[in-house]
């Protein structure tokens, strides 16, 4: 498989503190790759470097062979990357549908076309019946789904999911896993996800990249990674997978 996203020797320092150090990995087209590691490992910083929240000190990011290093988030979105946030950021006073319309307007010029696309996305994510509700009134699981819906509405080629399963009950996790698997298999959407819910990581990912203290310590298939002693020592411990 060709790489849709290629991250090469990415580094980021914050006032001398190395948050990400020399990280390289690829996300093949049509795959699901998980980025895991303990808190403070540099996962979200890596996401932010890819999404353009801040530029890297060193290293490059390529999407479909084109450099996107240091582009602003809106340009990264235009290039084809949609993202969610670890701490959900709905447009609180807007309705659920309006939230997704804003996402759809990344590709659509007219509001009518954006609304039509937004409705299709909401239907896909099971949020159609909540379309008119203010986003601030949603429960956490629904807010998480709204984050995914808004990112999906931008018609991304690569979706960055930052802990969309955190804080969900097991049944809600299963529901979201099903949605993500469906998006990947039926629509060929490539996904890079930060996740702590190892059950979901094992069920969904084609490959797993493990970060610790800002450095990549392992990469491979889920079964390879969970058997890696460095990963067990730094992250998984004796946790049952």
């Amino acid at each position, binding site marked *: 498989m060709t790489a849709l996203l290629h991250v090469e020797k990415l580094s980021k320092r914050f006032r001398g503190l190395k948050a990400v150090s020399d990280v390289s990995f690829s996300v093949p087209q049509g795959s699901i790759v998980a980025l895991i590691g303990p808190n403070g490992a540099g996962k979200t910083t890596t996401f932010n470097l890819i999404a353009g929240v801040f530029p890297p000190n060193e290293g490059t990011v390529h999407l479909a062979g084109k450099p996107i290093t240091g582009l*602003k988030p*809106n340009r990264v979105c235009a290039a084809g990357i949609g993202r969610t946030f670890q701490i959900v950021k709905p*447009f609180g006073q807007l309705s659920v549908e309006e939230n997704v319309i*804003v*996402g759809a307007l990344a590709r659509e010029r007219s509001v009518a076309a954006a609304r039509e696309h937004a409705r299709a996305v909401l239907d896909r994510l099971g949020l159609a019946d909540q379309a008119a509700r203010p986003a601030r009134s949603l429960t956490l699981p629904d807010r998480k789904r709204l984050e995914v819906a808004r990112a999906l509405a931008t018609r991304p080629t690569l979706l960055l999911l930052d802990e969309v399963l955190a804080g969900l009950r097991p049944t809600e996790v299963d529901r979201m896993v099903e949605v993500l698997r469906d998006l990947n298999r039926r629509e060929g959407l490539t996904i890079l996800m930060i996740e702590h819910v190892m059950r979901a990581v094992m069920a969904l990912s084609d490959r797993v990249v493990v970060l610790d203290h800002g450095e990549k310590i392992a990469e491979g298939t889920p079964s390879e990674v969970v058997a890696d002693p460095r990963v067990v020592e730094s992250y998984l411990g004796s946790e049952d997978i």
Partner: protein
Amino acid sequence: MTRRGIVLLALLGLLLLVAPLVADRYVVSVLTTVLWFAYVGQAWNVMMGFSGLLSLGHALYVGLGAYASAALFVHFGIGPWLGLWVAMLVAMAAGCFIGFLGFRFGVRGVHFALLTIAFAEVARIGFDHMQWLGGSGGFFIPVAGDVGNDLLNLRGSPTLFYYVILALVLGALALSRVLLHSRLGYQWLAIREEPEAAEAVGVDLFRARIAAVAVSSALTALGGVFQAFYFNNLFPEQVFSMGRSIEIILPAIVGGIGTLIGPILGAFILTPLGEGLTFLIEVSGFDLPGLKQLFYGVALVVIVVFRPEGVWPWLARKLRLVRAPGESA
């Protein structure tokens, strides 16, 4: 909006349309003031209400619009209908410059508000020393004799000005509605709510914010043009004052920031009460300077404490003038 809401607003619109036919000159002049604040409140609302950009120096755009159109009229004989375009461009340029400084260099929130105050104050001091525009002694538009209603040069009776400002209010309302339901409007609302998330879904924060400042400053300048030709005199101390900037933002805060009707309702609540208070003080024979400002301050505190979202959202729900979320049309 519900059918009841539309009917009620239509009735109020009709009342405003016939008001000069039944009301005396004083009432018409108060209504003109109310409508002026409703208009500039709507203009300010585009920045703060729609886009979340707090400007506390909107008097700058009123002043620039007023002085630009008055100077063109007095010094070059260019009428207000042509002059207003220049006035809007001048204010827009000033707004975009302030916006550029703020957005390019990451001046946000309260600091951006301070930047807007600083520019209004600089303008006040600057215009105080511009003798070509009358300086601190004031700039006057000659009042023609009894020329009847000359709409072309905006000279005429209070009724003429009343209908002009009513048209401006309705025009601003229509424009606000169109903007709010446009691509740009959705982007403004997204920026107001969560700038980082808005940028992540492709919104160019800089361009959208500059657009908000441009629209708001240009609309406000139009209010300045009206003020210049209505009052026929301009004093930097009044036009650019901080107090004027506060008066501009109060209707929207009282009525409901970010709503279409809020700034209009707020002006209809605040201005008559303020004027009524002034009238009562005058007839009682007391000399209490600054009482109106004190009243505005108390009104602001009451609103912030009891109705932080403003009067309109509460009133609209109480009287069922708008549909509840999820309620079908």
